[in-house]
Structure formats: C-alpha cells, structure tokens
C-alpha cells in the first residue's frame, strides 16, 4: 500500500517536466483556498463584538468593507488558478493514453498479446479517468492542511481542551477511512477484469468488422446474453461493496458530528460563564465547524490520492515493461549482398506444448528469391515473424550475413526489412504517409515521386489518380470524413507499395496476392522479379503458379523442410509440392 503512494511524487515529477507552472500554481491556489474560510470566520467576530460593545459605525464599516474585499480578492485568485489548472488536468489525462500507446509500440509483441497485458491496458485506461482529479486532489490536500492548522490555532488559543477532542475524533476518522480505502482497492481489483470484458462487448457492438455477421447470423441476442453474464458479475461485486462503503462513511460522518457536539458544549459553557464573548463564540463555533469540514476534505483528498496512487500503478507497471528495442548496440556494416540463415531454430508459442518447428535450418542466399510453400499451419508465417525479430526463438539463432540478428540495433535492423504481412494493417492517415511512413510535412517531392512509382508498380496508381485528392487522401474516415474506403485488394496493393518504397535489403511477402484479382496477381508476380531485383527476398504463396519464378522453393510440413529445389526439380521429385501443384492445375483443366 505504502509504496503505491510513493508513485505520486514520481508522477508529480514526471508531469512537472512537461508542465513547469503546474506545481507552483497548485501551491498558490492551495494557499488562498486554505486561508479563504478564515475571512468569514474571523472578521464577523470583530463586527459582532463591536456591535455589542463600542458600536462605532466607522469601525464596523471598515470591517464590512474588509470582509467584502477580502472575499473578492481571494475568490478571484482562486478562480484564475483553478481554471488554469483545469487545462493541465485535461492535458495530463490525455497524455497518459498517448504514453501508453507509444510504450506499447516498443514492447515485445508476445507480451502485448497476453491477456494479462490487455488487462493492464484496461486498468491503466480506467485509472486515467481518475488521473483527471490528480491536480484537484493535491490542491485540496494542501489547502485543507492550511485551513486545519490555522483553525486549530484559533481554537487552541482560546480553549486547549478542544485540541484533545479534535485529535481523538480524527484518529477515529482516519481508521474508518483506511477501511474505506481498502474496500476501494479491493473493489477495483475484482472489478477490472469484468470491466475489460464488458468494455469488449460494448466495443464489438460498434465494430463494423463484426457488424455483417452479427446481423446475418442474428448473433445480437447471443452477444447480449454473453454480456449479461459479465454484467451480473459486476453487479454482484458492486452491491456488496457499496453497502459496506456506505456504512463506513456513515460512521465517519457520525464521528465528525460528535466532535462538533462536544466542541459546541464546551463553547456554550464558556459563553454562559462569560469566559468568551458572543463574537468569540460564533468565531470559535465557526472554526470548529470549518475544522470538521477541512478534515473531511483532507481525508477525501487523501483517499482520492491513494486511490490515484493505486490507479496509476498499472500505468507505471506498464511503463516499466521491458522494451525490446535496443539501439545501444553498434551498427553493423552488412554491405549490399545479404544472406539470411536459420541455424537449429526451435520455436513454440507461449501456452502451447507443441513446437511449431524444432531445429529448423535453412539459408536464403544473397539476392535470391525464396518461396516457402506448405499447408496451412505448417509454420510459414512464424518464420517471417522470427526473421522480423517480432518473436524470439527458444533455441538456435538466425543470422544475417553471419551476424546474429539480435546483435543489430533495432532501428538499423528494421531498415533492412520491407514486409507485407498476411494480416497487414494500414493506418487511417494519408495514402502518402502510409507509403513513405513519414508525416506529410516531412515528405519531400522525391518521396511523393517514389510513392507514385511504387503505386504504379503494384497497379493501383490509376485508381488513386481518379480519386480527387489522389495520394493526399486519407484511408478510412477516421481522420477525414471524405477518406477513401479501399477494398481488400486495393489495401493490399498499397501495403505492397509501402514495403517496396522502404527499399530495404530484404523483401518479405506473406501471401501478397491473396486478395488480388487475377490480373493484379499476374502483375505483382511478373513484377516480383523486377521489384525484388538486387534484394534478398522471401515469399509465401499458395499459388503454385507463382512459385515458379522463385529461384528456390522450400516445402514446409509440420515444422520440417521436406522438399527443396526449384519448380522443375520439385515437380520431378513428385512429392507434396508436385501433388499440390497437380491439384491446383487440374482445376484449370476443363
């Protein structure tokens, strides 16, 4: 518990780096807010005493003006600082989700795909709602301390017994609040996984990728039924928790009331015994009441801050995840010719018993076009992920020009690779930005020319030219209402253009033509030799007509290379490749 509270100074420090004026402004606001109640407690005493005793009009007038002006000045300063701070609060709230996103792009993909990480995302997101109250809670905490210290000063200077009452009652209150805080944290912990699931259902409902099937299969009732199961879980936790919460906060409030009553009795006795004036009585009474309120505020701020400490824990836990990017390594010179070599590589997915492949070895020669063929699930795509360093093999090593790929700095290594994944994704920004992978203000004329060139090579230039806005069009309507809605095949062409425009040493294509029509497919494969000229390239394809152009083909079955050679030799060998080819070919023989 305690160390979670320790995250707050760290968070404050982090935030202060970006917003230098935030903390000083917080202090200013807290001081004025803390002293503000005193104006209306102290000045009326002097007015009242003057009214009862000397009755000097000009003195009363002075006090009344002092009161009014004091209120005005304090309120003004509080108001200005409050709204300035509000801007910081919002910014901090927004920043958190961006930081998480940026961090997410740097961690191990396997870690990212874990459910526990996804839970962490959700907890961090839920926590970010509370982060909005960070500035407010800090201010409230400091200002209530200031008020408490000054009201205690007023009370003690008049009646020392009051301090005893206050101390005892506040110890009791703090005990109750600790209990409430425990409840809060317990609740949060139990609720988070349910909340993530529930959010998942709510998201599916608005996800157009699911929308077609949901309608045609009338799956809406089923999804709502599933969502209800989760909801019932949430409600159960909710009910037990809130009743306890209500009970303890009731007790806390009652303790405050008892404190007021005792104070009040002590003051009344002094008043009747003429030990204090009516003015002092009202002032002390006001001070005692204010003290109760300020304690309430202090505890509220404290609770809110500890909850916050708990809430930013997943955020820091996430930020502390190990980054796989390593740019401290020395850049290696690999020259123009590039070979890729697998040596005894074994790999299995987490939570899976079976290896995708064990002790796999093969080599892609420099400037060679290698095709990988095999049944679904044979491990072809996994090979690509390993080359891309997205996954790490459990055993064995992968070498580029004889250098272990782990020895390259991340940035340098990624520059080698132009990849089109089977389930590639484009981002909702401009077409040009997607191809050049830079923001438009960094894109030069030469880049644009390059992009058009690649779009032409993949055969989508004409279509894009026909759209008003051309290469400046956004993809999808997320950033721009007039964004393009390219079909699957068109997206694939853009993705291939992106891989080619990168101009790395290695080109990797995982089923590059799956969504393409025959003409485009032909174009892509005809061009493939031209496009990958001078590059070491690797592609996966189920179209065995296309594998003819490969210099070499390896056939993968159950994680092992069972055949190897070019198209002609493999046909001659009459193995799996020949069999698959025959089946495919027979379909075209009418």
């Amino acid at each position, binding site marked *: 518990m305690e160390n979670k509270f320790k995250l707050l100074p760290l968070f404050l420090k982090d935030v202060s780096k970006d917003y230098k004026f935030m903390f000083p402004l917080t202090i200013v606001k807290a001081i004025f807010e803390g002293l503000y109640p005193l104006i209306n407690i102290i000045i009326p005493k002097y*007015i009242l005493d003057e*009214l009862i005793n000397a*009755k000097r009009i000009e003195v009363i007038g002075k006090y009344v*003006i002092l*009161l*009014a002006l004091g209120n*005005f000045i304090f309120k003004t300063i509080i*108001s200005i600082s409050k*709204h*300035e701070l*509000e*801007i910081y609060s919002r*910014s901090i709230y*927004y920043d958190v989700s*961006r930081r998480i*996103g940026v961090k*997410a*792009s740097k961690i191990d993909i396997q870690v*990212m795909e874990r459910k526990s990480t996804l839970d962490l995302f959700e907890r961090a997101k839920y926590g970010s*709602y509370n982060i909005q109250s960070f500035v407010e809670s800090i201010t409230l905490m400091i200002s209530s301390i200031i008020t408490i210290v000054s009201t205690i000063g007023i009370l003690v200077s008049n009646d020392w017994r009051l301090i005893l009452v206050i101390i005892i009652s506040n110890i009791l209150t703090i005990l109750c609040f600790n209990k409430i805080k425990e409840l809060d944290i317990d609740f949060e912990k139990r609720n988070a996984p349910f909340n993530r699931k529930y959010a*998942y259902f*709510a998201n*599916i*409902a608005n996800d157009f990728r699911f929308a077609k*099937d*949901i309608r045609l299969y009338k799956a*809406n*009732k089923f999804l*709502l039924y*599933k969502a209800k199961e989760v*909801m019932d879980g949430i409600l159960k936790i*909710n009910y037990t928790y*809130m*009743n306890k919460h*209500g*009970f303890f*906060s009731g007790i806390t409030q009652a303790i405050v009331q008892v404190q*007021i*009553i005792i104070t*009040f009795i002590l003051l009344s006795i002094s008043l009747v015994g003429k030990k204090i004036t009516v003015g002092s009585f009202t002032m002390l009474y006001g001070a005692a009441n204010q003290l109760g309120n300020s304690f309430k505020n202090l505890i509220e701020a404290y609770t809110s801050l500890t909850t916050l400490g708990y809430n930013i824990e997943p955020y820091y836990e996430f930020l502390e995840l190990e980054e796989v990017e390593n740019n401290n390594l020395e850049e290696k010179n690999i020259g123009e010719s590039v070979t890729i070599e697998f040596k005894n590589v074994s790999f299995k997915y987490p939570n899976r018993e079976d290896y995708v492949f064990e002790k796999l070895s093969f080599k892609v020669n420099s400037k060679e076009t290698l095709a990988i063929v095999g049944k679904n699930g044979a491990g072809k795509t996994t090979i690509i992920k390993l080359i891309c360093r997205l996954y790490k093999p459990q055993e064995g090593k992968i070498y580029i020009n004889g250098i272990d790929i782990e020895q390259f700095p991340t940035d340098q290594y990624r520059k080698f*690779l132009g*990849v089109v994944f089977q389930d590639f*994704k484009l981002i909702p920004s401009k077409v040009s930005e997607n191809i050049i*992978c830079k*923001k438009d203000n960094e894109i030069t004329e030469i880049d644009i020319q390059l992009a058009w060139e690649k779009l032409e090579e993949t055969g989508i230039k004409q279509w894009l030219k026909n759209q008003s806005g051309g290469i400046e069009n956004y993809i999808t*309507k997320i950033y721009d*209402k007039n964004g393009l809605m390219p*079909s699957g095949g068109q997206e694939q062409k853009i993705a291939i253009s992106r891989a080619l425009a*990168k101009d790395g040493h290695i080109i990797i294509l995982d089923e590059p033509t799956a*969504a*393409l029509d025959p003409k*485009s497919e032909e174009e892509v494969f005809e061009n493939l030799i031209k496009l990958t000229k001078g590059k070491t390239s690797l592609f996966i394809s*189920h179209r*065995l*007509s296309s594998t003819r152009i490969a210099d070499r083909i390896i056939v993968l079955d159950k994680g092992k290379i069972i055949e190897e050679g070019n198209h002609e030799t493999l046909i001659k060998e009459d193995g799996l490749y020949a069999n698959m*080819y*025959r089946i495919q*070919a027979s*379909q*075209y023989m009418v």
Partner: protein
Amino acid sequence: MLKITKFLLKKILKYDKVMIPIMILYTILATVQPFIWILIPTKVISLSNSGDIRSILFYILAGGIVSIISVILLSFFIANFRMRANSVRYHLIRDISAYSLAMPYENLLDPDHLSKIQLAEEAIRNPRRGIMGILNISLRLIGNILASIGLLGLMSTLSPWIMMLIFTLVIAQFYFRTEADRFNRNARKSVSEEERKYFKTTDLMKDPDYAKDIRIYSLINIMEIYAKESLGVLKDIVSKSEKKYIKAELIESFLNIIRDLVVFAYISYMLLESKIQISQFFLYTTGAISLVTMLQEMLKQMAEIFVYTKGVRAYMELLESPIIVEDQDDIQIRTKVDKELFTIEIKDLVFRYPNSKENILDNLNLTINSGEKLALVGENGTGKSTLIKILCKLYKPTSGNIYINGVDINEIPEFIYWDLVGVVFQDALLLPFSVKENIALTNDIDKERLMKSIDDADLEHIISKIQKGVDTTLLRILDDEGIDLSGGQRQKLYLARAIYKRNRFLMLDEPTAALDPLAEAELYEKYNALSKGKTSIYISHRLASTKFCDRVAYIKDGKILEIGSHEELMELGGEYNKIFNIQSKYYKNIDEMEVI
C-alpha cells in the same frame, strides 16, 4: 430537460425501483440537515444570558442526535444510490449495445451517426460523468433546492428586500455563467470529435493487430504526430472555454462585494437599532452565507447537468432510432419467399456510398435462377462485395430493384430475409468464445445440428486435436488458455457457421483466399456438395472455382460485362477468357506432369 427526466425515471423504474424511495428519503434529510446547525447555535446564544445551562445542553444534544442519525442515513443512502445508479448504468450500456447490434448496417457508413454513438457512449461509459453525473448531481440538487427555499423563507423574515437582493444577484451571476456554459457546450462537439480521433489513434497504438506493422514501419512516429496535433486542438478549445469561465467568475466575485456589503450593513444596522437580537444576528448572517453558497452550488450543479444532457440526448435519440425489429413476422411474405425455389432478379441496380458521386454499381441487371450456382468474377474494387452486401440486405440500393421470388426485397423484413441467407464473408471474424458458440452464435445450441455442421465443414479433425474439443475457447482476449486458428481452420469454422444456420441462398465471398492448395481443393468440393440444388453465389479470384458454377458473371465498372457458362465465356474470347488464361497459363504443362 423534462424529457430527460422522464427518460431517466423510466429507466430507474425499469431497472431499480428502490432508487425512488431512497431518493425521496435522501432529499428530505438533506433538506433538514443544514438547518440543525444554524438553529441550535441561535437558540444557545439567545439562552446564554439566562445562564440556563441545562436547557442549552438539552438543545445541543437533541440537535446532535438528530444530526448524527441523519448523517449516517445520508451516507448510507448516497452509497446505496450510487451503487444502484451504477447498476442502472451497466444496464444502459447493454441497451445501447443492443441498439448498435440491431441498427441498420448502413448507419456504420454515416460518420454523423457514428459520432452520435460516440457521444452516447461517453454519456454512459464514464462512471463519474454523463448519466452518472446527472443522477448523482440531481440527487444533491433536489436537496439543495428545497433547503434553499427554506433559507429564502428564513431570510424573508429579516427583510424580503434582502432576500430579493441575494436572489437577484445569484440569478445575475448565473446569467454570466451561462454564457461560458454555452460556449463550453458548443465546444463539446468539437472536443468529442477531436477526442474520438485522439483516442482512436492511441487505441491503434496499442492494438495487437497493428503491432507488427507499427514496428516494422516505425508507424508510431506518424501516429504520435497525429495524436499531438489532436492534442493541440483539444488544449486550445479547453483553454478558450476555461478563459470564459474565469471571466464569468470575476463578474461573480464582483457582484459578491455588493452582496457582502449590503447584507452585513443591513444586519448590523438592525442590530444597532435593536430591531433584532444578537442571536438573530448569528442566525441571519449564517443563513445568508449558507443561502449564497447553496444557490451558487445549485447553479453550478444545474450547469454541470446541462453539459451532460447532450450525451444523454444523443443516447435517447439512438434508442428511439429505427432498428431491425425481430418480432414482427409477416406470414404472407414468409410463405411467398421461404420456398424451395429461390429466384433472384436484379433490375437496374445502382449503388453509391452516401456523399460520393462515384457509382459502385451502375445499372446492373442480373437474374439468378433457382438452384443455380453463379460465380462473380472481376477486378478488385469493381463492386462484387458491395453486390453481396446489397443481396444480404445490409445496404439499400441507391436505385433499382431486387426481387426475391418475385417479392421486392425492400418489402421483406430483414428478420425474415436473414433466415434465408447463409454467407461467409471475406473478413469474417472469430469471437473470443468457445468453438461451438462460434459456430452456432447462440447460447441455445442444437447438438445435432452442431455435429452435422462440424462434420460437413470437415472441422472434426481439428477439434479432436484440441484439449477441450468444441468447448475450447478461441482467442486469448477473454481467456489466457484460448487458442488461435490458422487461416484454413478459420475458413472451415466460418463454413460450419453457414451450415449450422438454415439457409436457402448461399453466398461465399473469397473463402479460399488464405488456403493452401490442398485445403482449397477440399473446400471447393465441400462447397460443391453443400450447394447442390441451392441458389448460390461465389466470389473468388481463383478462377478454377468457376468450373463447378453453372454460370459466370464478369463484372466491370459496376456492370455485368459478360455472363454465361465457363465454356461460353471462354468461347466468347472476352475479358473473362483473358484473365482465365492469365491465371491458368502456368498450369498448362500439366500434361507433361502426367507423363512423370
């Protein structure tokens, strides 16, 4: 405002009636509570000269006990209320999901509709703002309103003029504040628009599906710039709106000077003139301060509620928007349409996306005979998938007609029509549930049908290999033990889905794109067997698939360019012939293979 109140009350009555008595009791206590510690001290001061310590103690203790009981109850009520409000919120989330799941598919193409959903979602997703904000605030607001009426009454016993003055000043302050509020409300739209972009961007950053491309192409840099641009816009709007509030509050503080001066001067004057007693001085000053605090708080609460109403209104509008109803069966139409024979006639079909000038489908005419297997062929982006979506009744044609067994498709309720079609889409998705739930897409699974569809789709050998068989969870989104399926396995599962569902008309949109040759050939055969005697449409770029179709329709520029059997089209020597040759030319040497 009245509509929203009515709406919320209705929802409360529907999901948690107990909230109503809690609200009433809370309101009564919250009204009385502030008076206790104003009235008791007044009494004590007035008794202090008499020295009657016993009466004083009696009043303090009596007031104290009432106060203790009421704060305990208040805390309990508020916690209970919050809990119940929160559970109502979860129900409301479910209601909007139910809406989204059943709204016309076309709404997903309409950005305005999407922002409305976003606005409504915001109103219910946040546990502090939106509907929760309204519920929690209004509870306190009602107590405040009643208590301030009491305080206004109290102040009017001092002087109706003073009461009027306080009241007028607060109204004036409210007036200046509404200006800022109005600005804030109007800004809200651009804020939520920009927030949508911002959070969409940050969500994509951490979306596992995007992770590979983000890494390889360093896309995070672009995304971060986009996020920062949105952030700049957001900060700008927020700071403008906060400046308006500063201005309003300066005026407020200034008006308070007048209030303080007049009220204190007047009360002091009354005391000096002995028109009131010292205890009353206490009563009225405390009363005046409480009244002002309460009124201001009230106005702020009202303003805050007002900010949230926009989202709630969007929410209400959505729930009232048309959805695809499920409980109206039209026997007449059903008997006409739901027949063994299933003929489709498409006449002069035109389709373009809203806000677009380009016709995706352009006067397309096509008749599909009952029991006929039709292959749809054409280049990327020629409108094949769009045609399927229209035939699924997901999109409405821009113009033209489609007749199913002679009945205009527009007259067939979706609910009936969807019973008749089976579809496997190009971009179908797995849900993170068990295998069997993914096939049946219902919680009420017919075992026999399940087994038959698994059999027919040839899923058996996949299922037998996994530990929990059909109960195995797919994907790791909701279950760490979940498993993923390969492309081919997925396709088979989708096929099983289509088989499990009864249908008269089958559509397959590129189901074999990701399959290896063996699996592909196998699936062709499966499909051939399954669609025997069934009206069906098949889209594929693998032209080999056209072989087992009765007719091939070649689409170009949104029109049918060539139509006929494979042989006829080959004979014709047109576009189809050309692309078929392109694809098959590499397989031509099959004869020499046979020799081997």
